[in-house]
């Protein structure tokens, strides 16, 4: 089966997040809520029930005062390629084809009208990137007015997750098409809301396979790593940190085992 129509250019969108730069301010989270019509409730402290397309986690090295270090780790959907390209864990288990791997972009979609809420995908995702709508969303008073028409509001009973702001890609593609350059979408023309919102410049987004894009260089950084890399999910989100303890937290290492980026130094 031909996965990419011959007239479509293949892209592979992904993200590189510099954990040593992230300040944990959560601007990315709020910009995402606003961009993607993510609903809220008056009780949001039960994080397993809270809807977040990107979560910023706080990590500490556990050393005692004053040798303590803190890092913040923003985590969107990893848009995994899967062990076999095009088969991320969540896509394989979906009985309704409600989540799919988009070959021309490498983005893992979520189609709310197809989803019937079995939550197999949530069980299959090792990153907790997916959340379930246990309640109907409510925008009190006239808050419905701030909803964006570019992203549909979800209902009770469906799973939702980060889409790498796919609607922004659609808008950029439309614009390019109208301007007579259907396949040329500049790096600046398509950026996710969180990337744009990050006030410290920790997030970089682009085509991982395009040598002209910043992410292409960054993903090859010596200190780049991915979360739970050894599960072979092949995430499209990379992280950079020069701190060994952060690398250690990104995967399950045995005692004495050294993360790849530091293996050389210790040998």
């Amino acid at each position, binding site marked *: 089966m031909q996965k990419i129509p011959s007239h479509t250019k293949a892209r592979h969108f992904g993200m590189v997040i510099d954990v040593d730069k992230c300040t944990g301010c959560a601007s990315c989270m709020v910009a995402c809520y606003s961009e993607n019509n993510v609903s*809220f409730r008056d009780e949001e402290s039960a994080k397993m029930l809270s809807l977040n397309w990107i979560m910023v986690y706080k990590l500490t090295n556990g050393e*005692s005062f004053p040798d303590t270090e803190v890092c913040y780790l923003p985590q969107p959907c990893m848009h995994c390629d899967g062990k076999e390209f095009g088969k991320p864990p969540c896509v394989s288990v979906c009985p309704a084809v409600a989540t799919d791997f988009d070959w021309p972009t490498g983005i893992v979609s979520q189609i709310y009208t197809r989803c*019937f809420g079995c939550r197999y995908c949530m069980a299959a995702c090792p990153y907790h990137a997916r959340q379930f709508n246990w309640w109907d969303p409510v925008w009190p*008073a006239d808050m419905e*007015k701030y909803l964006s028409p570019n992203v549909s509001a979800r209902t009770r009973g469906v799973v939702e997750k980060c889409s790498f702001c796919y609607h922004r890609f659609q808008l950029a593609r439309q614009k390019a098409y109208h301007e007579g350059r259907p396949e040329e979408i500049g790096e600046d023309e398509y950026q996710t809301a969180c990337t744009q919102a990050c006030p410290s410049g920790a997030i970089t987004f682009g085509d991982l396979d395009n040598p002209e894009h910043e992410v292409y260089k960054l993903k090859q950084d010596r200190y780049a790593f991915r979360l739970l890399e050894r599960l072979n999910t092949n995430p499209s989100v990379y992280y950079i940190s020069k701190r060994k303890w952060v690398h250690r937290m990104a995967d399950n290492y045995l005692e004495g085992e050294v993360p790849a980026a530091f293996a050389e130094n210790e040998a």
Partner: protein
Amino acid sequence: MKIDRRCFLSLAGGLVVGHLLSPVPWKMTDDIAIWSQNWPWTPVPEDGPVRWKETVCTLCPGGCGVRVRTIRDRVVKIEGKEDHPVNRGSLCPLGYSSIQYLYGPSRVTTPMKRTGERGSGEFEPIGWDAAITEVTRKLGELRQNGKSHKTAVIAGDDRGTVPYLFKRFLEAYGSPNFIRTPSGRDAHETAAYLAQGKSAQNVGFDLENAKYILSFGCGLLDGCGAPGYQFAAYSNFGEDHKLVQVEPRLSNTAARAEKWLPAKPGTEAALALSMASVIIDRGLHNRNFISNHAFGFEDFTDDNGNMHKGFRSLVSEYTPSKAAEITGIDARRIESVAVEFARSDKPVAICGYYESRNTADIDKTLAVHALNALVGNINQAGGMFVFPEPDYDLPEVQKDNAASAGTEKPRADLAGSDQYPQSRYLLNLLPKRILEARNNDLPVEALLVVDANPVYTLEESEKVQEAFEKIPFIVSFSSFMDETAKMADIILPDHHFLEGSRDVPAPAGVGMPVEGFSVPVVDPQYDTRNVGDTIIDIAQEMGGSIGSSFPWDDYGDFLEKALSDRYRDLTRNGYIVNRDRVSGISDAFETDSGSYEFYPTRRHTADNGDTDKLPAYREIEIPGSNTNNAVALVAYQSPRIASGAVANPPFMTKTIDSKTLKEDKLFIQINPETARNLNLKQGDEAVIETPAGKATVRIDLFEGIMPGLAAMPAGLGHTAYSRFIAGKGVNVNALLRALPDPAYGMNTAWGIRAQLTKA
């Protein structure tokens, strides 16, 4: 046929199995799924032409430029404006959430009049005309009875045209009581007055160009000051930039700093002076600046022949080893940071503004300013700037006899009194003065509150609330039903910043004389009015000399005249940078000596002597008693929690992690060592009790906080706004108590002693 039990069960079982084998249940599940997704109450946002508009955010004093995505008459998204000189595209979570304040249940949608008990939150809508008449009648009565000086204004800022209009109103009406809420600016303004002779001017730090930032407790990346400006500076950090953070807790700023110096709280002055001693000892100070623009660096004899100790002799007492004893920071680290700082290309030392509490430690601030002077970076790129606010060229205020008599009266908050002659605003002293006064002799009988929420933000909130209950007449101009608006008799709601025009003065702490201008991007959503228009209306309805002091059609007309030649550029670009307001080094100092005064000759001291004029480390005995299970409670700031006059919108509350807030219970951070001593574990419920109040909290063990301290985030525990905001956690201000500086009256308490016991 007889239906026995066996037969019934077979039939029922057969039915179930039969159904399961048929497509009916699957078809039904599918149909239910489709039906549930077509519920008519799921909103389908209306599409339409997209327009991007630009304005300036005024939810905090940061003054960031924003671009606003609108679809028809709806605002759907806010983003940072790339070419705004303050934030250069950055924006904080509060800015991104500001659409949740434009729409939503927290807004005051129409003028309101109190119907229930004060503070009960029972109001009835009242028309604009009736509301304004009621206010003018009350103020008129007071004035007629010769008590115009008992009217006070509490404002979040004293710069910009809106505060100007309120000051002008009080002058024409006859009251000296314009009071700004306490902030980090108090200490900086005072230090600039003492060392540089500049009265009521902006003190800012050019973080954009600085290469070595030595921060004494500023939450640069924790949402204090002008967050957009600081984030923008941080995002441009290269290999040659360094940030050093002095703070007893590993804050977000400390976590991102190159070096973290966890000095004991309240000892920062000793640390700064010790660094000064290292710099002077090694001859790394800027000799040109010291010999040409400094006074009191060396010992000197005054005109009366009295010998005075100079700055050099003073700091020689603060050797690194002595400072190490006081601060807990290793002497070699003190030395190395001091040397790096002085040798850096563009060093800057900062304090205040960004701290989690609005404390004003004059000694520390003078010591930090002195560090900047030592390296000669006053009014230099990448250094510390002091510059005046733009003024307005407007006709004189007309004052009748009542106005002149009223403005001559002493201030209700004791600022400028014999006790505190050099302080400008002392709101922290007002609640106590009101509570101690007899009912027929209250210092304030009518109160107007604009851009401020003192009932929430002042220390000892309970006492503040009691004091407000005693004030006979309160008017709030808030857009939102905040704690202070809830206490008001009349609410005259202002527009949200996306609905109205307003000038935005230079953000606190920003090292550049920028002036912003916010313009409406949508029509007013409710029956609100620009506060500028409201105060002009009130003045005009009062008539006489008050009315004729306000000869403008409306606020728009006033803005055009007040901003005169700047108006066009401001409305067109959204900002201007008044570089010419920064004076060169040769005429930077307006002290008697015409120099930067390391020895601040004009400093007022409690005993009026001159022994204490030099900045020094003086131990601050914070309130509360030091018992067995005592911890020192400090407030901390988080970029995810808005702690100022405007509360946390639901989006920001959603970002708070479950080790900070869980089911409306707030966590306090303590070191595991402290926890062991107090027999507490992670997640335990505990009671924290201070002389000011008591609260139930939960325990979060955090290695990154100094043992003996307990840190509580500022900005939660609201009691007003909406159910999405109120009732979450504890208001740390309710547990704190101010400790007035003996000579300046401002709060100097960095924390409070508290008993922490397992619940």
